[in-house]
């Protein structure tokens, strides 16, 4: 029988069901989700700017931030009550499955550039929740995961230091000395580069340094491997990173806690932590 004839005989949902379509609720404006309503400020100009971030509108966000600064609004207030609220709403919608990565990246770009405007007036870098250092393992060129992490951290209000890819253990040690980070993330996509993690841990120990936790993740990395050393915790999704950092910051968690409470901290079932 011809290909077309065969195709015409098929009842599609006996073979594959597009559960993404099944799961999709009615279209709704981003600002109307109850979770978002709770986050968004009500006062102007904060609300307008937050909405511009929510709708990934860099041009208008920048324009309104500049205007508000000229009108004398405090840059700190603009950052905290408008920009961070907007990006917070974006993260919430991403976690909820309404927003997608590009939304996050673009809103993040809008947020970051707007923050820079505020910082110009402020005359210094704005305060962040804390510093996180991110690297890709030595010998490894795969850096997309790490780049996502940077964005999620920044959206989460952290200062994220990018050491780049193919980073030697010694360079990581220097960064720890320099930034004394709250948290660190390492990414490796290959069986033969995840071996960089124990080297980093060794090098830190030798230098007498410690960090509350080093999140280690990436394609080929396995939890069982990561847990053969100290100081590390296996990281699964890039968007988990700010939640892990928050847990360290707020609840004083260390790597041992994170290993035990990973699922709870990131607030969802994590298959890797169930195996």
């Amino acid at each position, binding site marked *: 029988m011809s290909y077309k004839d065969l195709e015409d005989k098929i009842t599609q949902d006996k073979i*594959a069901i597009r559960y993404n379509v*099944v799961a999709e609720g009615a279209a709704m404006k981003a600002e109307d989700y109850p979770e978002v309503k709770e986050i968004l400020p009500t006062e102007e100009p904060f609300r307008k700017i937050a909405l511009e971030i929510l709708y990934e509108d860099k041009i208008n966000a920048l324009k309104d931030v500049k205007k508000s600064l000229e009108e004398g609004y405090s840059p700190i207030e603009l950052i905290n009550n408008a920009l961070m609220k907007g990006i917070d709403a974006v993260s919430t919608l991403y976690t909820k499955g309404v927003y997608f990565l590009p939304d996050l990246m673009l809103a993040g770009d809008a947020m970051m550039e707007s923050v820079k405007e505020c910082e110009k007036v402020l005359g210094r870098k704005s305060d962040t929740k804390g510093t996180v250092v991110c690297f890709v393992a030595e010998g490894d060129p795969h850096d997309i995961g790490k780049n996502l992490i940077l964005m999620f951290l920044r959206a989460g209000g952290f200062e994220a230091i990018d050491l780049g890819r193919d980073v030697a253990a010694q360079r990581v040690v220097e960064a720890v000395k320099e930034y004394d980070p709250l948290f660190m993330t390492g990414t490796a996509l290959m069986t033969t580069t995840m071996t960089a993690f124990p080297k980093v841990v060794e090098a830190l120990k030798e230098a007498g340094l410690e960090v509350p936790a080093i999140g280690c993740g990436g394609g080929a990395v396995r939890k069982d491997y990561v847990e053969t050393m100290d100081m590390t915790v296996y990281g699964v999704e890039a968007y988990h990173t700010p939640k892990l950092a928050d847990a360290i910051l707020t609840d004083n968690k260390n790597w041992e806690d994170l290993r035990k409470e990973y699922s709870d901290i990131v607030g969802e079932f994590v298959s890797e932590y169930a195996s």
Partner: protein
Amino acid sequence: MKRFTKMEYESPDDMVFGFAKHPVKTKYDMEIGAGYVNPIIKVAPKEGSENSMESMVAECRNITISACQRALNIGLPSFIIEQEHIAQQTANPEWAGACTQAQVEVLEKFHDEYGIKVALKATPADIRDEEKGSNYRTSEQYQNVMESIEQCCENGASIICIETTGGKSVSDYGISRGDPRAILFGIGVLGSIDMEFMWEEIVKICNKHKVIPGGDTNCSQSNTAMFLAGGLLDKDCSHTLAAIARGIGGANSLVAVECGAKGPLKDCGYENPIVKSISGVPIATEGKNAVCAHSDLMGNLIAGICDCWSNESVYHREEMGGTTPEVWLQATGFEAALMNTAIQTGEDKTLRDLYTLTDKYRDPQALILAYDNAYRIGEAIVEYGDDPYQRSIAAALEVGKIITEAVEAKKIQLTRFEQDSLNSAIRTFNKLPDDSSKFIKRSVRRYGRKVEDFDPKNYEL
């Protein structure tokens, strides 16, 4: 109990994957053998999870959630999760209950939310110990097996299976020594006696709770032969003898159905095509997507007339592609999807034939399970359907005939070892008495002496 004395299928060509003469329905919209193939995922609990009931329950729940998530992510319309209980779950029936409850809860949630068809197949372990004086039929272990089954039923399992082990002390002896008589006695006689005893009871419990009594398998015996037989270059068990064990295994696994098992029969029962041809119940099989668990020489062929398609078993851990419940459900899920496409387009019989012909002449063990040959063995069995002993010999001799014909037709070549052990087995079987009681008496004497663990009392002999 109604013995099968005629075939439920009129011709081998009537059999194809996804369709059983007697389909099965369970809750959550699940149907088996009703026009589509269900993938099965089975994951061995991780080392350490046996330490407490809590950790085992968590383990079972987690495996289930992972599987459900992947099923949605790749668009599977339906799937079955089977949990093969380890000894601790059966020795402590409340574990069996709690694990089942946790798994059912998860399945129900995903079914409610997405409409995905799901079922839990619970398989308590046969923890009875075959030893002299072990009181197979009354021991505390026996009681715990039945109590565990009851617990699984009460807590929402859709299907109950088990792998009974009757006769294995004798068949083990036969397989390792290449003794066809011991194989016949262990599988065909002792195995059948024990399976009948167990299933009369299991079916009662299932019926009480309106849970599907699934089926049994000759795993403990013919799979032992198959694994010892190994690959083409292995040298532990003759592949022709393993084929004979399998044929007899068909006569054995049929007993559960005769007692009221409704299918799907257990995935590891490579003899299932024979049983399906006779009885028309849906079957689960496993092959090329069970490479994680073991290597067989009929990875495609065995899919030919399955109703459920399984991965057999895998460590619970991470692959680059995800955790193993995810990865291996995707493997069986995609193969089931191919079969379902074939069904939808009306090309199911073509795909069945391709599966079959891929392995038919790869090995004698595969040859005899090609659906046409499985049917022939089925016919040989039902001809002597009333007598487990005689039908086992008939199955064995038909296996011999099928292989011999293929050799003569130059379709397959055997090694000297395979040919010799086949010839000698056939000679042995041809010399056996017709009368089963005579055979049993002699065998009880012979193997009572040779096989340390064999206790005729366990079989009321």
